[in-house]
């Protein structure tokens, strides 16, 4: 288990310029009972940066995403997105309730889940239309057009009216990506989005994500086990273990010549499959 | 309240009768459940069909109707039983029919993989059932059996309508002679409630004792709450 002393500040390579960061985590900690999921994390992400987070299960990687998406509350620390405060929790303070500020800031973030979480009673296109209509107040026609374009983009133009049970896992995940994209988020979070898929379906989903990485300037955070993919599309890779960022750097460095022993050990175990 | 204290002995006698019905009824119901449940799973048509008919008939009619029929109509066909016996038999048949479906369901859901393993190991069908399938299925049956048991308890009150001197009957008698309506019925309700809570605790204890593995899939909450077409006292217990 790495000690807090080993932790590095997972800041962007360029000198930090406070308000320039898209995402900042300052001294964020989170515990579940005795389990310290995150320990005093400092983490910054620049706009348009594509960051992959790797590491063993239970290392806290998913928690970072979930705190950003307000699915979990930090025990302590400050989290900002696009200059706006999302979380500001002092140690021992009672969990803050959802504020208007939080709701507005959250709109800039989108998330794709490991279990897809599509709405099973709605068709693919209805899934993608739902949030723009209900949240952005878009007209049904406009939302329909946009949804159609997005589903075409992810290669599901033929499946607009199919309900999730009729789609394969890979197709469902692509609908999930289109659904998140419909809200035009500035930040996209991908939480092990291919882990629940059959191997032959993974490629199509990765193609879509690669497309997003190369052709948009969204800030993207990916928690993933797909090491080759992470190496290919990331600007920066962060290695997590037991709630601490133990190493970070450009993909070539992390994957080919890591400094930290834990990183080496982890990569050896994972890449030897 | 003083009325209750005065008539406590009578209520106590009624309670004893209720408990007798509960114990005898559930013991017999268990036998019925496994007989009918396993019968329904049999490969032999001659066993399957009577079992199925028995189960559907007793689930499809309400217990009070069955009680009346067994007490008033059956003697006219030559079979006359004392009221208490009628009570026990009908309780067992009715609740046994519901429990039979629980037995059948629990075993069937385990059947496929386990049966194949037995075939591969060369274990014959009868042994397969007895030593492998049934013991495994019992922990799964317990929660639903618990509901059936509490249902059985509540249904014992119905025998009062065919003049069995159970708790409810005694309560009604006391009410008629004293007019202490509220006190009597409150007492009855509280006693039944306490009994059902105790039964519930007992079942929870048994479930824990017989649990095979802790990592089984969490049961749907709806499945816990609902009983498939329950017997005549408004469904499952606490």
């Amino acid at each position, binding site marked *: 288990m790495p000690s807090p002393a080993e932790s590095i500040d997972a800041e962007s390579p360029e000198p930090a310029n406070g308000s320039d960061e898209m995402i900042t985590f300052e001294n964020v900690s989170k515990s579940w009972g005795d389990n310290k999921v995150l320990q005093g994390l400092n983490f910054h992400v620049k706009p348009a940066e594509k960051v992959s987070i790797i590491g063993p299960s239970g290392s806290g990687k998913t928690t970072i995403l979930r705190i950003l998406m307000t699915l979990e509350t930090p025990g302590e620390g400050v989290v900002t997105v696009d200059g706006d405060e999302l979380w500001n929790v002092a140690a021992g303070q009672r969990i803050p309730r959802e504020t208007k500020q939080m709701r507005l800031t959250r709109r800039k973030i989108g998330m794709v889940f490991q279990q897809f979480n599509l709405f099973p009673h709605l068709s693919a296109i209805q899934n993608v239309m*739902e949030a723009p209509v209900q949240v952005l107040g878009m007209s049904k026609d406009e939302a329909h057009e946009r949804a159609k374009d997005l589903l075409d983009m992810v290669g599901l133009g033929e499946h607009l009216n199919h309900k999730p049970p009729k789609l394969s896992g890979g197709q469902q995940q692509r609908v999930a990506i289109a659904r998140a994209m419909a809200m035009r988020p500035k930040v996209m979070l991908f939480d092990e989005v291919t882990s629940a898929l059959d191997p032959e379906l993974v490629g199509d989903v990765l193609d879509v994500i690669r497309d997003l990485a190369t052709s948009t300037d969204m800030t993207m955070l990916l928690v993933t086990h797909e090491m080759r993919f992470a190496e290919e599309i990331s600007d920066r890779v962060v290695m997590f273990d037991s709630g601490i960022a133990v190493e970070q750097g450009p993909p070539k460095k992390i994957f080919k010549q890591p400094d930290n022993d834990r990183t080496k050990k982890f990569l050896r175990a994972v890449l030897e499959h | 309240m003083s009325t209750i204290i005065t008539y406590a002995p009578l209520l106590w006698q009624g309670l004893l009768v209720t408990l007798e019905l509960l114990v005898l009824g559930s013991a017999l119901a268990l036998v019925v459940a496994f007989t009918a449940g396993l019968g329904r799973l049999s490969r032999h048509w001659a066993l399957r069909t009577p079992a199925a008919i028995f189960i559907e008939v007793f689930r499809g009619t309400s217990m009070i109707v069955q009680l009346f029929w067994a007490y008033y109509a059956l003697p006219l066909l030559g079979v006359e039983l004392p009221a208490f016996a009628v009570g026990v038999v009908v309780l067992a048949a009715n609740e046994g029919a519901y429990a039979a479906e629980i037995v059948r369901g629990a075993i069937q859901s385990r059947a496929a993989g386990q049966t194949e393993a037995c075939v591969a190991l060369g274990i014959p069908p009868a042994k397969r059932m007895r030593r492998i399938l049934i013991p495994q299925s019992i922990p799964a049956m317990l929660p639903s059996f618990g509901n059936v048991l509490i249902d059985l308890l509540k249904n014992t009150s119905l025998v009062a309508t065919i003049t069995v001197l159970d708790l409810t009957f005694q309560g009604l008698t006391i009410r008629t002679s004293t007019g202490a309506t509220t006190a009597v019925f409150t007492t009855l309700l509280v006693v039944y409630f306490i009994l059902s*809570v105790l039964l519930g605790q007992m079942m929870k204890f048994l479930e824990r004792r017989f649990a095979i593995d802790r990592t089984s899939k969490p049961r749907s909450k709806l499945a816990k709450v609902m009983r498939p077409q329950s017997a005549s006292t*408004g469904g499952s217990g606490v």
Partner: protein
Amino acid sequence: MTWDTEYALSILPRLLRGLLVTIEATFAGIAIALVLGLIVAVIRYLRIPIISHLFTFYVSFVRGTPLLVQAFAAFFILPDYGITMSALLTGILVVGVNYSAYTAEVYRAGIEDVDKGQWEATTALSLPGRPTWTRIILPQAVRKIIPVLGNYWIQMFKDVAILSAITVSELLYTAQTIGSSDYRYLEPLTIVGLLYLAVSYPAAIIVRRLERRLAFSR
């Protein structure tokens, strides 16, 4: 004494009228149970201090005591407090209140059974409270709840026979009346059993089919 078909046919009209009362009572009772159960479920969900706990206890108590005793209690106690109603109305209320304890649980379990991921997806999409409930959660919960409620409806249909004990002129009571006045019990009670089967068995099959259809089209 053996079966007398002529006699059986002669009492059939009266018994069918009794069956009609049973069916009416069932419809009225289930309506009460559905509405009252919903109110109870909502209050428990909102976790209002004291009141929600009271309702939780009320649900446990009603589910843990026999319907027959509840019926007698209502039938005898209410007039003492100045509330006079027909036996039928009393019976409907008793059955309605009794089953509301079960429907309340069904509503609660139905909501809790909706996959947690659905809630997380609505958070990720910033979907506000009302559409989350009305467009995402409830449609899914309702699909699961309906077959269960259907089964409770059938159960209530059978339980209405218990109301014969408080002189409601439903099917069983009618048979008892015929039996005691004509001194013939075999035909009336057997027909009662057959009529119950004739309604509940097809109904059960319909509910099972409905369950399968609702599950598939999700």
